[in-house]
């Protein structure tokens, strides 16, 4: 489940030993940089390149959220530099500009918050590659935006229970996750409605699930390993990072 990215790499011959180790230990490593880092590693003698790990406990969850917000903010930065946005209708432009602002604010908030508690354990600024997105195409931009926002929603929904609320800070983190996830859901709704106006897609059967036999009326809640595997599969993340110590329950 968590090794979509690693599986892809298996195809690449000559990188076997490290790969197998990574797979067996259940590591989640994101970032196309990993492949390059490992490709000079055929003899298995060179030291393993240092890959940032998100960490454990609440810090790990904060870093996880920060990494996702970095991805979103970087994407919308490119959107606002692109030809589609420049030529879009005024209302649509404003929606994307607002979303850009919100994601930058989320990113900077996490940066400030994590730096103040763990200045030496914060995810570094990540590098991204959006060459697979056509920023002059409405379909390409909104389609990618939809995926990122829906991913944000299920990521926060799944992270909530992983936050340790045994101390006051943990409770604040949980509330903060709640404050942000609903804004991501508002984004997802608006973007989906731009793609298919007036339809049910703002909260569509394609993204919602049923619980205990009900109709589809609930957002998903995804584990970090699954979210990161999906994010890794997009190829957007260049700077490799690992998530081997996040809480799982």
């Amino acid at each position, binding site marked *: 489940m968590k090794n979509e990215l690693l599986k892809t790499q298996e195809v690449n011959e000559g990188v076997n030993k490290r790969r197998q180790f990574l797979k067996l230990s259940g590591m989640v490593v994101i970032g196309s940089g990993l492949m390059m880092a490992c490709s000079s590693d055929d003899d298995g003698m060179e030291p393993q390149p240092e890959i940032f790990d998100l960490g454990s406990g609440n810090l790990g969850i904060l870093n996880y959220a920060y990494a996702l917000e970095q991805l979103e903010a970087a994407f919308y930065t490119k959107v606002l530099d692109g030809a589609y946005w420049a030529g879009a209708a005024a209302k649509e432009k404003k929606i994307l500009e607002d979303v850009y602002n919100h994601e930058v604010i989320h990113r900077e908030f996490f940066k400030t918050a994590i730096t103040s508690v763990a200045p030496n354990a914060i995810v570094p600024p990540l590098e991204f590659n959006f060459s697979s997105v056509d920023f002059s195409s409405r379909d390409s931009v909104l389609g990618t935006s939809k995926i990122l926002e829906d991913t944000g929603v299920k990521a926060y929904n799944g992270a909530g229970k992983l936050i340790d609320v045994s101390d006051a800070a943990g409770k604040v983190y949980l509330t903060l996750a709640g404050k942000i996830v*609903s804004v991501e859901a508002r984004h997802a*709704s608006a973007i989906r409605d731009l793609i298919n106006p007036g339809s049910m897609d703002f909260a569509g059967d394609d993204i919602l699930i049923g619980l205990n036999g009900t109709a589809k009326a609930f957002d998903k809640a995804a584990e970090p390993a699954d979210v990161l595997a999906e994010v890794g599969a997009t190829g957007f993340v260049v700077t490799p990072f690992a998530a081997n110590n996040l809480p799982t329950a």
Partner: protein
Amino acid sequence: MNFIKILDALSNKDLLSKAGTRRDSFNQFKKLGSTVALASIPFGLAATSSKSKAATKAMAGPMGTNSNTDVLNFALTLEYLERSYYQQGLDAAGLIPSADQTVFATISKHEDAHVEFLLAALGDAAIEEPVFDFTGAPGGLNLNPFGDYPTFLALAQGFEDTGVRAYKGQAGALANDNDLLQYALQIHSVEARHASKVRRMRDEKGWITQSQNTLPEAFAGIYGGATPESNKMQGGVDLSGMFGAFGGDDGLTEAFDEPLTMDEVLAIGGVFIVS
């Protein structure tokens, strides 16, 4: 700056232990709905809040299944309200234009499922459905949501934004049960999808700027409260003025939704509850 220390000061202890007072959500709705005159809601709220704070301090104790039951019944009451509202709206001939039927049929279906899910989760502990009056008469109002589409849309926005804030306010109380917490979050973000859609149908942004809204003045509480939507303190840090290039304080307040306490939600919902 010590982030943790600042966070300490912000902790939501009131909310957490309030559930431990085991009060019956339904009765609160009833009481507030029938006794609080509309114009005095802000003051009524303040009085209720300080009273329950005092009570909470006296009764602070560990949370158990009963408090979770209270929270779920609180959620169920909101979902009953929404379900009834959309059903009546869809049943009102000529109210919802055909172009908007899909949207409200979708929202209605979701609220049905939320009620069904909560009923199953609560079993015998589930409260019965209250009697609703969407004219707002229990709160001294005289609205016509099922005969006037703009009013229907306005109340729909109010209920959805209230729902988002209500679930958010209970996350801490459900944190002792991973499954319940996650279920609540899975409903919470769907309410936010609804809210965004309905707001945009009314030519508001999908997100909430400061505490601004275009609802009747009587519903200011939906965007106000102890932590109003205009809140600029996050994680104990005052972020005002920090995002000039990114929408400024308006963008900042849009980027974070805020919780409502149970009492604040009860005061809003009580306006529509007869018994």
